């Protein structure tokens, strides 16, 4: 197996006096799909945000694609990254938010094209053609000139996925991508994500969709109170949890 894409060791995060992550360790190999489940407030979003440099970690080490998050290694010193260095690291990681966060002043196509053009400085014509393909893939080619406000939640989330994919990321992070959707719209988004997983995208998915976790995940990771309590193959974690806290959580959501 090739080198892991994400290696977290003893990651800790504090918000003021509150310890939100209490030593989280997790390794994700390329092409692997890891689902993180757990009760609200257990630190799942915070952990994802740490991976994407949106939060600074207070202890432990976190590496993505062989590079330390937030620091540049030079000999035995760690130099804190400058804002534009952080930005270029983030460019390799795609992130999809619970609330979509599409740019409302841009059309669907403009949302997708913006970052590849401005951040990667790729030629506009090439990016537009690729955006077309991506929108087709998420089934929204017809909506390319619409503004996000005129789309349903499910459509917005699919655009958000296309927007992230347009950066050709090495890793995709999903933070409860279907939690803000009406029940009948959940399926279309999960369908797109399933397709991504089949194509070999490395994904870390925070979700409450146990069906999706069971079918698509290579590994399920249960977090509670800032710790990874249990991880393993979905059949084992979801079907035959070893830890009583996992069992208690599953009995509530299933």
């Amino acid at each position, binding site marked *: 197996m090739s080198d892991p894409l994400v290696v977290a060791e003893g990651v800790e995060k504090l918000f003021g006096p509150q310890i939100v992550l209490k030593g989280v360790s997790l390794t994700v190999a390329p092409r692997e799909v890891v689902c993180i489940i757990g009760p609200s407030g257990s630190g799942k979003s915070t952990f994802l945000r740490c991976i994407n440099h*949106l939060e600074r970690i207070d202890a432990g080490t976190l590496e993505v694609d062989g590079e330390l998050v937030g620091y540049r290694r030079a000999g035995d010193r760690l130099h804190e990254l400058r804002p534009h260095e952080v930005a*270029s690291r983030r460019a390799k990681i795609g992130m999809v938010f619970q609330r979509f966060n599409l*740019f409302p*002043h841009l059309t669907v196509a403009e949302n997708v094209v913006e970052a590849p053009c401005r951040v990667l400085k790729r030629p506009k014509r090439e990016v537009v053609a690729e955006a077309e393909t991506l929108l087709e893939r998420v089934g929204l080619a017809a909506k390319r000139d619409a503004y*996000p406000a005129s789309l349903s939640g499910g459509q917005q989330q699919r655009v958000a996925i296309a927007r992230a994919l347009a950066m050709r990321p090495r890793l995709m992070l999903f933070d409860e991508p279907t939690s803000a959707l009406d029940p009948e719209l959940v399926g279309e988004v999960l369908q797109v994500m399933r397709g991504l997983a089949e194509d070999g995208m490395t994904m870390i998915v925070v979700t409450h969709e146990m069906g999706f976790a069971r079918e698509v995940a290579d590994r399920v990771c249960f977090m509670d109170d800032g710790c990874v309590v249990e991880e393993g193959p979905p059949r084992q974690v979801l079907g035959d949890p070893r830890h009583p806290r996992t069992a208690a959580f599953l009995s509530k959501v299933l």
Partner: protein
Amino acid sequence: MRALPIQPASASTADAVEAGGPGGGQQRSAPVVVPLRHWGRWIAAALVLVVAGALVSAFATNPDIDWSAVPRYLFSGSILRGLWHTLLLALLAQGVGIALGVLLAAMRLSENPVTRSVSWLYIWLFRGTPLLVQLIFWFNLGLVFHTISLSVPFTGLTLFSESTNTLITPFAAALLGLALNEGAYMAEIVRGGLLGVERGQTEAAYALGMTPGLTLRRIVLPQAIRIIIPPTGNEFINMLKTTSLASVIAYDDLLNGAKNIYNQNLQTFELLIVASIWYLVATSILTIGQFYLERHYARGSSAALAPSLVEVWKRSLTLRRMVKA
């Protein structure tokens, strides 16, 4: 709302029912909808008309006002030159003020404590002192700094040197005073606009690898503009009127143009009316411009495209709710 689910009773449908078209008798006709009569509005309108009429007649029939002087001076050279100066000063001062405001707001929201404090101090200073005092201060700068020069430190090399009184003309003092003061107010407006954009927008931009500067320019500012425009329009309209303060430091603006004439012919009231007409014309044009600017930046928002200006006026002027026949 205009859309009524059932056919309203308008004169034409009522007539049609009475006339009883062929076969009309067999069908049950739709119930007649009687719109609510707003008697209070009619009474209020009558009262307003009476009071306004009394006021207008008090001015119009006043023997001490020479109304013929108003059209005579409306397009006089001195007035038009003053108007041009007023417009120029307002436009430049507002433009510089907006640029300063964006800069100060970005400084105020940055993570750098130095720029944050500088911005805070600036706003504190310029908002905390009267504009008139600032104008007179700039105008009298020459009293304490006799020359203004730009030189390279430690070399004795002087790039530029000029007497302050030559540099600080009434126009320069007015522009400095108005623009620097406006910058402080615009900073607060822009800051409010930037804070009004959801935090998730910045995070989504960051997650796409955009730098903070790019995020501000491409994502946050364009959305903040929608929040910023209405108060900025008000600021500009205010600025247009506030330029009249510059007449105190001998700037040749619209008010000064009127003053110069009435100091000679003593038709003070008439010339103040002339100046007011031009101020009103200018502010009205700005109001219309602001309306269309707001409409332009509303694109992509969930609200439906606003109606045209004429439509808005019609709606606000109708006393009775109009129903489509």
